[in-house]
């Protein structure tokens, strides 16, 4: 029956349409983010300032709002990408940059660089430090998974242990640090899109957008991993290799997403789940869609954070937590099927 083939092709077309809609959605939200702010620039003003011109509008758009918007998109899509990849590789619906402790350790790496270089560090130092610490904890998780042939729960436990470890270390730094250092660290843990310039954006962009096509290329292998290691190997997937390099790349992406912005929780865990509910588990569609949803989530959270108590800016990490928690509970309640 060509019927089944046709139905499947129809489904594939719907997934593609959803992807396109998401891109459109991202553009809309991004534009709203650009036009919002204490200094009223207006729609027309923003558009003109984007394309050229000079003066205050131009400065506001290019120096303040555009970097902020781009960083939000990068951080959101990076966290979502990393979360989706971790979930596929560890075959664990609870995996995410935070529940595996990888984001916390990357964060600690960034904080270490900031505190110990007393203002002399460049974005390379911060990013490098974040990545190294991210790798340390991700290899720890991999090692545990191999040693104890870990269940999903074991991995999350290990991840939470790592998270507490680095969080305690950070608290120690705060305890020992100077006032300025403490403030920096504390603000870092709230998450912030405010202090990013184009240098940081290029660095983060490279760390997130360079691994992305490689990870996308492995979509079929991620699909097959869902069927079990044995089944995947028998179908030609090099499971060990995918797992190792996948985790390294996802750690790089995680480090890139947060080393300049601090803690932005929930996005890495929730984005893949939301996307999966609509689009299913085919990673050829899941990976890009998840990234878009992550970007939209963070952008929207930033819009909320900037407008709720204007002119005060609520740190992004706080907003995502507030949005994330009830949303996640809602997902739990509404679950129709017995899995994620």
């Amino acid at each position, binding site marked *: 029956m060509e*019927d089944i083939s046709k139905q*499947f092709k129809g*489904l594939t077309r719907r997934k593609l349409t959803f992807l396109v809609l998401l891109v459109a959605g991202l553009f809309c939200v991004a534009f709203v983010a650009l036009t919002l702010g204490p200094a009223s620039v207006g729609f027309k003003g923003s558009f003109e300032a984007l394309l050229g011109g000079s003066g205050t509008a131009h400065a506001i758009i290019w120096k303040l709002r555009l970097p902020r918007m781009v960083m939000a998109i990068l951080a959101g899509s990076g966290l979502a990408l990393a979360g989706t990849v971790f979930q596929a590789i560890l*075959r*664990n619906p609870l995996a995410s940059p935070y529940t595996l402790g990888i984001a916390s350790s990357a964060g600690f790496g960034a904080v270490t660089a900031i505190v110990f270089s007393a203002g002399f560090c460049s974005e390379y130092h911060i990013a490098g430090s974040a990545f190294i610490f991210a790798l340390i904890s991700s290899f720890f998780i991999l090692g545990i998974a191999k040693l104890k042939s870990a269940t*999903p729960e074991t991995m999350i436990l290990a991840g939470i242990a790592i998270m507490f470890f680095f969080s305690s270390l950070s608290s120690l730094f705060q305890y020992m640090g100077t006032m300025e250092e403490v403030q920096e660290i504390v603000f870092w843990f709230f998450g912030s899109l405010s202090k990013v310039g184009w240098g940081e954006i290029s660095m983060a962009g490279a760390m997130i957008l360079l691994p992305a096509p490689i990870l996308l290329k492995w979509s079929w292998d991620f699909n097959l991993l869902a069927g079990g290691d044995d089944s995947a190997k*028998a179908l*030609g997937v090099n499971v060990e290799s995918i797992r190792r390099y996948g985790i390294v790349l996802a750690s790089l992406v995680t480090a890139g997403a947060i080393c300049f912005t601090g803690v932005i929780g929930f996005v890495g865990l929730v984005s893949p789940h939301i996307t999966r509910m609509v689009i299913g588990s085919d990673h050829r569609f899941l990976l890009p869609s998840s990234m878009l949803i992550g970007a939209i989530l963070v952008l929207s959270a930033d819009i909320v954070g900037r407008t709720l108590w204007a002119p005060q800016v609520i740190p992004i990490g706080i907003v995502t937590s507030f949005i994330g928690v009830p949303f996640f509970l809602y997902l739990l309640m509404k679950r129709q*099927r017995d899995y*994620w």
Partner: protein
Amino acid sequence: MLRIKGLFFSYKKTEVLADIGLKLRKGEVLGIVGPNGAGKTTLLRCIAGISKPEKGSVLIDDRDVFGMRRTDLAKRIGYVPQTGPSKFPVTVFETVLMGRRPYISWRPSENDLKVVADLLRSMDLADMALRYFDQLSGGQKQKVLLAKAFAQETDCLLLDEPTGNLDLRHQMEVMEMISTMAKEKGIAAILAMHDLNLTSRFADTILMLNNGRTFCIGAPDQVMTRENITSVYGVETEINTSNGYPYILPIRPVGQTVDSGQRAVDSKK
């Protein structure tokens, strides 16, 4: 077509398989039986190229299974483990499509889709093509996993307990499907089985494993004897021949002197 010589496999320090050898022709169905822990699954995994043996060789069409590229091997040997995808929502169609992975680079071709659709139709799974794998019953899931293996279009199929959790009808359907595939398409199949009767009915050759070693190998009526089953399984049986193949009726575990019915009554006192 498939030749195994002097196969040894150990897990950590424990020897799991010792000196296993066998030959398989096109269209032949080989049943591997043995108690739990005898090494059936391990043997299948060695043949599938998943677990590397310490000694010995596994040759398919005279080529070493461990010397081949994984994708090439996947086009020659299909492996159906006991469980399927879980935890994430996957449709039946996508599950079977996974079997085409050795032939797909990014986009499934028309032919790939056709192979999957035809298989689903011939296995009576067309109605649930777009339903989620997790929502199916045990029997339907097993048929889907079988379809996934058939979709690989290999010359050799390895199946681990294909009738494991199935009801009577599904057991028959699955075994007949495998048998038909073997006869009509010349596919060689190796099945690790617990059910001795199904095995002796559908297999051309039976390998009886005990403690990782070949206890005996031959036609069903040669292997399925009272003495063999008592030695390997520790169960007394009665063997009759029905429709040309041995039919095994278990009587009691060896060493028990009381009739099991009476024993239950005694324990109530």
